[in-house]
């Protein structure tokens, strides 16, 4: 079955003369455009904008928006992305006029509340991560990684050291080596052992006087906690390198263990993952970076400071790496994260991690009889399955993901981490009820049975979506990026 619920695009609905707007009568003198703009800048033919009625416009976009999938519409167990529910109180607070109607160039004394919020958010994040200082400028996770690596570069340079290599495990998020490369480092990969942990002996082999940093996620992308983390950070420190914490998986550790106490020197957090700010569809994100004492002088300017009871912006920091984002980061997003932290409180944040870990372990145990579990030890906030068994029936992990669409789920992350064959990476998050988890588990069991008994149902999925399987290969090889009118 091939579903073709494709919709006409707005340009195809156009009929000459229809308008969706009703402008008031002109109350200023009418001026000929020709008298204002030189000929070279004037259109010779009118822009071919779509001409539709207001009702057509509303129906068109309402229908498109109904085709979206978000956490508000359904379960979204996308591993490593922490697609948790974003409480609506965050939205209310971000819309307070004192936050939404101020300008970044306003005098500091007129925006004391906004500066106080940013300052307190920095303090909260420093406490949560065990760091000594935080910048809120980076716009998202990878930007935070890059900022952190530039801080590490500046730190080594200030000590007259030329350190050119950044070590990443083979299970790392792809952004780790990418950010290190953009920051001008060479990448060294260190293998994982059979249990999914960093191979300590392999790490000893690759660290040296050229090691700038090791980048690590803990829990790692297999969802397991690097139990030898203290030894790992010690090995890198003894070689003179720093250790970077990729905070993508911080939802597993809130209030339980802190990167600073594990020996990490630099950390980024994804507020759009762990701290319930909007995620996906452009967010925008926010990727604050925290550092230990030795790296404070290099933080991006302006730095938000508190002197007595007055908050201000400090720019005179000669060793700073400079500004990494216009103004002070994605302010509205940071307001939402602050609201979340203050709503939850320390006990609430601890429960976040406890429930996230409980939900993931429950789901993993329930699915273990039906799918291969490459790392059977207790997981943290997420776990990986392998579709090896199903592959023998001719059903690939991609097919399983497509079949999940038929049941209204956003599929888990697939084919990542790269070290697990036919990988499915599932992160249920703490905000889902046991009923939702059970429904998803039952569907996964049903799909495992279908793979054995009626594999074609899975191979040809999805059947119930607006369009069936898309031709991803042609889309990637020969993308059509621009609409052209027939």
């Amino acid at each position, binding site marked *: 079955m091939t579903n073709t619920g494709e919709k006409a695009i707005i340009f195809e609905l156009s009929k000459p003369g229809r308008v969706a707007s009703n402008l008031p009568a002109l109350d200023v003198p009418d001026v000929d455009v020709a008298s204002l703009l030189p000929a070279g800048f004037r259109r010779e033919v009118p822009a071919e904008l779509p001409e539709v009625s207001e009702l057509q416009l509303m129906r068109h976009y309402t229908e498109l928006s109904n085709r979206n999938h978000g956490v508000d519409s359904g379960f979204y167990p996308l591993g490593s992305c922490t697609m948790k529910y974003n409480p609506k109180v965050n939205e209310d607070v971000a819309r307070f006029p004192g936050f939404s109607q101020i300008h970044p160039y306003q005098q500091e004394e007129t925006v004391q509340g906004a500066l106080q919020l940013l300052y307190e958010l920095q303090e909260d994040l420093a406490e949560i991560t065990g760091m000594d200082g935080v910048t809120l400028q980076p716009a998202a996770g990878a930007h935070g990684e890059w900022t952190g690596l530039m801080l590490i570069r500046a730190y080594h340079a200030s000590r007259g050291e030329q350190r050119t290599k950044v070590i990443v495990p083979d299970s790392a998020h792809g952004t780790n080596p990418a950010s290190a490369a953009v920051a001008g480092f060479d990448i060294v990969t260190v293998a994982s052992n059979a249990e999914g942990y960093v191979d300590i002996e392999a790490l000893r082999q690759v660290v040296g006087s050229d090691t700038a940093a090791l980048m690590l996620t803990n829990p790692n992308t297999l969802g397991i906690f690097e139990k030898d983390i203290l030894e790992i950070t010690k090995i890198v420190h003894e070689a003179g390198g720093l250790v970077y914490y990729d905070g993508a998986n911080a939802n597993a550790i809130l209030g339980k263990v802190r990167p600073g106490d594990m020996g990490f020197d630099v950390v980024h957090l994804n507020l759009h993952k762990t701290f319930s700010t909007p995620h996906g569809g452009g967010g925008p994100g926010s990727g604050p970076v925290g550092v230990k004492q030795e790296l404070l002088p290099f933080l991006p300017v302006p730095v938000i400071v508190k002197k007595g009871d007055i908050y201000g912006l400090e720019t005179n920091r000669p060793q700073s790496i400079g500004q990494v984002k216009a103004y002070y980061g994605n302010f509205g997003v940071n307001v939402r994260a602050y609201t979340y932290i203050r709503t939850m409180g320390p006990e609430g944040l601890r429960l976040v991690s406890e429930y996230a870990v409980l939900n993931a372990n429950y789901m993993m145990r329930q699915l273990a009889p039906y799918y291969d579990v490459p790392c059977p030890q207790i997981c943290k906030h997420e776990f990986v399955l392998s579709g090896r068994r199903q592959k023998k029936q001719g059903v690939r992990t991609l097919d399983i993901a497509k079949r999940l669409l038929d049941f209204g789920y956003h599929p888990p992350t697939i*084919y*990542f981490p790269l070290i697990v064959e036919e990988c499915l990476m599932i992160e249920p998050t703490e905000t889902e009820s046991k009923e939702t988890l059970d429904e998803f588990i039952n569907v996964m069991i049903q799909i495992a049975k279908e793979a054995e008994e009626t594999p074609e149902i899975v191979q040809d999925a999805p059947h119930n979506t607006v369009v069936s399987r898309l031709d*991803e*290969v042609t889309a*990637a*090889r020969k993308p059509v990026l621009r609409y052209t009118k027939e």
Partner: protein
Amino acid sequence: MSNVLPNLKYSKEHEWIEVIGDNKVRIGITDYAQHSLGDIVFVELPGVGDLAEADESMGTVESVKAVSDVYSPVSGEVLEVNEALEDDPEIVNNDPYGEGWMAIIALSDPSQLDGLLTAEQYEALIQEEE
């Protein structure tokens, strides 16, 4: 079952190496590699004249699933690259050992060939992985 040609040498990173003259080899990725990657949508090759280093990345292949490095199995100067792959990456899927070749390299250390896998050894390796 993936195809392994008897007259080629192989690397653990799933490249094949064909000796095509005095200290000259042609390199590509194996049938097993193209099959594991799935439909390849983009191939990035080294530049002619670049110095490839054994076990270092010399290019990338991107499929709908993942982006992977292509590791050079030997060290030496890149003499030719298969530019046809830039426009038609699917050639690697269709004919990995023939039209889908990636680069020709002048060996700087011919003894490196001795460290590569034979067809039988490579077949054993992929059987283990499967």
